[in-house]
């Protein structure tokens, strides 16, 4: 008989809050910046002065948060092995393990670059609100990465998304910005509703909202009942995938992408393309692997082919559609939007690879590597878009004509980033793609699905993508300079570009520097925190985890492999 | 067929209400809600006319019956026999539904009021969890979540108000209902926030529970944060029931009659009834939450005697109900007094008053209430003798000081702001217009 559970329901200890300090700092810093604007600066100073001070304050806050996050990574501060096995961290709502510790550094790093980018250009009257919302969306983003439970995940996702809706519409006096925000809001609300509906179905099926517990419940019921092939699970799975599909801009849910990317102020677009996508993909991997791992492949029933097949199709369609649509674009931001859809496709290949590969942690590491490098490259390219919008007053690719002669350094950086986005060998983009595709071919672990066709499609698409990226390169180096090109680059744009380019080259030449820690993060990302063995039977929903519950059959449980080393490959 | 239907319904109702005696339900419904309360309201109207007449140096109704006591009945008959008129283009069903909704809202909020002490039974203490004798309260229903229930049902009234204005197809009616919805939505917030300290101190949402705590520890209005909450609650209640000086929705001089412009006959009578009944209900709520319900000042007197014989219980309940009525009567007199004294508020100041003065004050008051809780209530939770003399006075001193500071601070800020608004309004309408100045202009509703 199951014992009456002792539910750990306590206010989190101070050490738990301490591990959350970067997030807390950002949340409070948002309030601080807002108050600084509303109470001190507004109606007293000129807009430019206000923007400068608020930007600097925000930058200081973001750098401090970055410092804290890095500090938590410092050996000794964070006892990783203890924490990763702790299910009682914040009563099981979030996990703070190697993955979250590392990935939050990346997220806050993106935030720092976006804030630097925002400082170059006064595009809104609502400066305080702008930076505050930027901070708060980062809070949502990081908690979304760390979430171990559906409710936290959903609330964090909404915090991130709603802040970004508003950021999208904040450009003063721009109708396109308002239009983009409205479109984003409407599509986004519908997608969120579907997502929540799907989550509620999963809750109804399993009686818990914790990712790990959902995984366990599904495994058990599968062995008994064969849940994988039922309408219920199929519906739940489709709804959850629709929600994530919207967030990562994969094809049937991509309609918002071009308009929002084009209409939003360039720094916000950079934030959507890097931060939001980064967090959404990580949350997606977590949900699909930890909770819904059982549904990855079909179980012989026709109704539910499993998410591996669904995602493979989505990936192929996203890549093809994104690349083909990008071919015809004249607008730089719109072209990048379609390229972002295409990259979602590549990344979905990676997610599928995690589902099928025999080396899941390596596959996860590869996806994370791609996410990081892609985020950096996007930030760099959108920095150029910001410069275009700010100084040239236009978004067209033709406005970049001859930039290589007039401004060699930024042009060279942009060229590097574009080449990396194509996937040219010594650069980081190449390694990301190569690793992901290799893992997709490395099937055999889970049902032995060969994804050769998907990889072939992805490779063909990479070739197609080269066309439109090269068009930009051609504009940079082979065209006569236009009249507007003489304008100087603001320092924020230069910094972002240089950091992105250096990182791209550096991680391209030495991928293990990034792959090793990310692979380690991949392990803890795919490992659900085990129930504490202290005789404190826990589950956030009151499910007693008695010791007699049999260990899962190998299907969903990710084997905890030793730290992978990329050099082994 | 019909008989079958009726018998099924009867069976179901019998099964549903098994734990509740039929008789009590019947009495409450037909004697209380259908008989006594409307009658009471009729005499509240009479009282208002008399009081207002005294304020204006008149005599008031004195023709129908002794002291004009039958005046309300005569008015009722008049209303019943007038032509029931509905505008041709009006939305008939909604037009008919609106006054009923308002009346329902007022009646529903009366359902949870403990008019008397009821009896005594053993219940868990909400703070310590220990079983102890607790008042059961003489109320139609004792809901464990009574306070949110009150908020919920009072929000139905704004729906009725809105529909009344909308369905009439009349500009003035629509304007009146727009004003009223904005007003009610805004003033609901300070009203609710003012009840939060009470809930915090009592540890329960049940009105009976709150009454019980007050009988034990003293009335909440006698504590500084409680007094502040009482004042804020009363002010926002004036606005919630659309009484002067907040009677903008029906401002005669601007909107003719506002939302009930197109109503006549007994439908108008229902609005009339609903308005006075919600005033009565609000006074009852206020008495229960702040003024110790039916408790005699500074005494826990009938409490110890309850729970013995039924006859004694009934007699003691009669006393407590009388005390309760007295308190409610005083509050209702306050309503009359204010109406006879203060002019109507200006529409743009109305919103600013709620959002910029009452709500911040409420939030600060909540913090001070928490200080009171920590000093006076929490340390003695579960002890029978309650807070010591010194402790009570320390708490009183500290919170009273803070309340005074908070009050003057809030008023000072409010004044600063309204002066600023006025200045910018003048500068924006002056020779040198600027867009920024336009923003600070108070929003008109």
């Amino acid at each position: 008989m199951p014992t009456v559970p002792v539910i750990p329901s306590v206010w989190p200890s101070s050490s738990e809050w301490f591990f959350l300090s970067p997030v807390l700092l950002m949340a409070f810093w948002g309030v601080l910046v807002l108050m600084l604007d509303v109470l001190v600066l507004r109606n007293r100073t000129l807009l430019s002065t206000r923007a400068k001070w608020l930007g600097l304050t925000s930058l200081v806050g973001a750098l401090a948060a970055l410092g804290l996050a890095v500090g938590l990574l410092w050996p000794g501060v964070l006892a990783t092995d203890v924490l990763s096995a702790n299910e009682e961290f914040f009563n099981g709502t979030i996990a703070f393990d190697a993955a979250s510790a590392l990935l939050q550094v990346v997220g806050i790093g993106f935030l720092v670059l976006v804030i630097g980018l925002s400082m170059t250009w006064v595009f809104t009257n609502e400066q305080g609100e702008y930076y505050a919302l930027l901070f708060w969306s980062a809070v949502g983003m990081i908690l979304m990465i760390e979430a171990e439970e559906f409710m936290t995940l959903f609330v964090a996702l909404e915090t991130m998304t709603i802040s970004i809706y508003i950021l999208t519409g904040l450009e003063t006096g721009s109708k396109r910005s308002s239009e983009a925000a409205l479109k984003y809001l409407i599509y986004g609300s519908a997608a969120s509703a579907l997502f929540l509906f799907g989550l509620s179905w999963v809750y109804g099926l399993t009686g818990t909202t914790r990712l790990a517990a959902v995984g366990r419940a599904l495994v058990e019921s599968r062995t008994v009942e064969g849940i994988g092939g039922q309408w219920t699970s199929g519906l739940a799975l489709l709804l959850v995938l629709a929600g994530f599909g919207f967030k990562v801009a994969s094809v049937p849910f991509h309609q918002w992408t071009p308009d929002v990317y084009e209409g939003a102020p360039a720094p916000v677009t950079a934030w959507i393309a890097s931060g939001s996508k980064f967090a959404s993909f990580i949350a997606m991997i977590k949900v699909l692997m930890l909770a819904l791992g059982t549904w990855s492949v079909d179980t012989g029933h026709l109704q539910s082919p499993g998410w591996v097949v669904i995602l493979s199709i989505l990936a192929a369609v996203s890549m093809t559609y994104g690349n083909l649509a990008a071919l015809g674009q004249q607008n730089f931001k719109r072209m990048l939007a379609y390229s972002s859809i295409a990259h979602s496709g590549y990344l979905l290949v990676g997610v599928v690879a995690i589902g099928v590969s025999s080396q899941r942690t390596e596959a996860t590491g590869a996806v994370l590597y791609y996410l990081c490098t892609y985020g950096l490259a996007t930030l760099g390219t959108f920095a150029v878009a910001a410069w275009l919008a700010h100084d040239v007053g236009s978004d067209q690719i033709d406005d970049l004509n001859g930039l290589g002669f007039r401004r060699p350094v930024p042009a060279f950086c942009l060229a590097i980033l574009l080449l990396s986005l194509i996937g040219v060998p010594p650069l980081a983009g190449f390694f990301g793609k190569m690793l992901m595709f290799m893992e997709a071919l490395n099937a055999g672990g889970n049902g032995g699905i060969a994804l050769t066709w998907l990889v072939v499609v992805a490779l063909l698409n990479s070739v197609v993508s080269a066309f439109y990226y090269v068009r930009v390169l051609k504009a940079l180096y082979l065209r006569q300079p236009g009249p507007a090109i003489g304008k100087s680059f603001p320092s924020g744009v230069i910094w972002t570009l240089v950091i992105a380019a250096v990182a791209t080259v550096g991680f391209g030449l030495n991928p293990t520097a990034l792959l090793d820690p990310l692979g380690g993060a991949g392990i803890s990302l795919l490992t659900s925190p085990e129930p504490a063995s202290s005789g404190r039977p826990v589950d956030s929903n009151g499910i007693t985890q008695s010791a007699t519950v049999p260990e899962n059959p190998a299907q969903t449980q990710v084997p905890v492999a030793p730290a992978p080393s990329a050099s082994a490959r | 067929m019909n008989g079958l239907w009726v018998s099924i319904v009867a069976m179901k109702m019998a099964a549903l209400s098994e734990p509740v005696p039929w008789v009590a339900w019947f009495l409450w419904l037909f004697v209380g809600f259908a008989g006594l309360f409307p009658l009471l309201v009729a005499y509240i109207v009479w009282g208002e006319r008399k009081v207002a007449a005294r304020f204006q140096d008149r005599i008031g109704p004195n023709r129908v019956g002794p002291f004009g006591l039958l005046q309300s009945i005569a008015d009722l008959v008049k209303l019943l026999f007038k032509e029931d008129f509905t505008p041709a283009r009006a939305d008939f069903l909604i037009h008919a539904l609106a006054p009923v909704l308002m009346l329902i809202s007022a009646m529903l909020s009366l359902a949870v009021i403990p008019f008397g002490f009821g009896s005594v039974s053993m219940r868990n203490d909400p703070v310590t969890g220990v079983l102890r004798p607790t008042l059961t309260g003489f109320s139609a229903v004792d809901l464990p979540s009574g306070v949110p229930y009150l908020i919920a049902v009072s929000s139905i009234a704004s729906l009725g108000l809105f529909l009344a204005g909308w369905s009439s197809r009349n500009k003035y009616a629509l304007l009146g209902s727009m004003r009223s919805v904005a007003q009610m939505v805004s003033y609901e917030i300070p009203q609710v926030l003012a009840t939060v300290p009470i809930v915090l101190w009592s540890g329960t949402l049940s009105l009976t529970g709150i009454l019980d705590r007050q009988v034990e520890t003293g009335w909440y209005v006698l504590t500084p944060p409680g007094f502040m909450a009482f004042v804020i609650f009363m002010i926002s209640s004036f606005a919630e029931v659309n009484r002067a000086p907040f009677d903008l929705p029906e401002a005669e001089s601007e909107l003719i009659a506002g939302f009930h412009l197109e109503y006549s006959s007994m439908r108008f009578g229902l609005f009339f009834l609903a308005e006075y009944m919600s005033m009565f209900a609000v006074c009852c709520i206020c008495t229960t939450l702040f003024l110790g319900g039916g408790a005699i000042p500074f005494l826990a007197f009938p409490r110890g005697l309850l729970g013995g014989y039924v006859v004694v219980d009934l007699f003691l309940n009669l006393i407590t109900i009388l005390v309760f009525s007295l308190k409610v009567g005083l509050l209702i007199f306050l309503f009359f007094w204010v109406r006879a004294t203060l002019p109507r508020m200006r529409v743009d100041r109305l919103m600013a008053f709620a959002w910029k003065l009452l709500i911040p004050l409420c939030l600060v008051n909540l913090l001070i209430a928490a200080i009171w809780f920590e000093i006076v209530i929490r340390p003695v939770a579960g002890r029978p003798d309650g807070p010591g003399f010194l402790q009570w006075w320390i708490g009183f001193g500290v919170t009273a000081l803070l309340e005074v500071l908070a009050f003057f601070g809030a008023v000072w800020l409010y004044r600063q702001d309204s002066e600023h608004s006025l200045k910018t309004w003048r500068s924006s309408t002056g020779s040198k217009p600027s867009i920024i100045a336009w923003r600070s202009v108070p929003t008109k509703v």
Partner: protein
Amino acid sequence: MLLLMLVSAGMLVAGLWEILIFREFGPMRGVFVQIAGAAVLCAVGTVLARNLIHSALYLVAFFFLVACLFIMLEAEFLAVMQVLVFIGAVAILLMFGIMLTQDVQGDQVEAHSVLRRLPAAIVAIGLFVMLAVAVQQRPDFSKARTERAAPSVAARERVLNQMPQELGLDLMQRWCLPFELVGLLLTASLVGAVALAQPVGSLSAGSDGTPSPGSLTETPEHLSREVAGGTHSSSRPDLVSP
């Protein structure tokens, strides 16, 4: 009148259905069927009503019936909250929104053609079928459920009698992080709403009362052009240029 007739007819049909189909009528089941039937009718009315306010009213009725269902599930606090939030706030705001945007004095509603309604109907019915099949097929989770210990009688009573208290404790302890995060979410929405709803000035207006366009070099030219060209949607020309 239509509303009243519809609802009463629905109750009657539901009652008959209950007698005919279920054969046995425990009081609770009967009440449930009637409430649920009325709720379905109200939901249908929400979709089919031609007048937006009528539609919103049906929605209000639906919310209220859902609150009734909560009461049947002994979740009284939830029912109260349902009325408070959905009728007291959401419905009122909805109607306010309709009133401020539509031609409220008339009943002008564009009649949707069948062609436009058909896809919606197909999707709705399809979803219904999927849900129905899914519910019908729902796997028996008896095994997973046994893990969850049945609450003791005392615990159950405590929760039922002090639902707000238990809920509050749970929110402040076990769910404290999502709870705080919801606070942040609401703050962000509020701040954003204020920021978006502010009357749009031009970027060049810098300080209180002192027009200072010339001193800002960072003002993007295309924006200034846009403002000067009058394409600016919300700027008030009467105040911008005398």
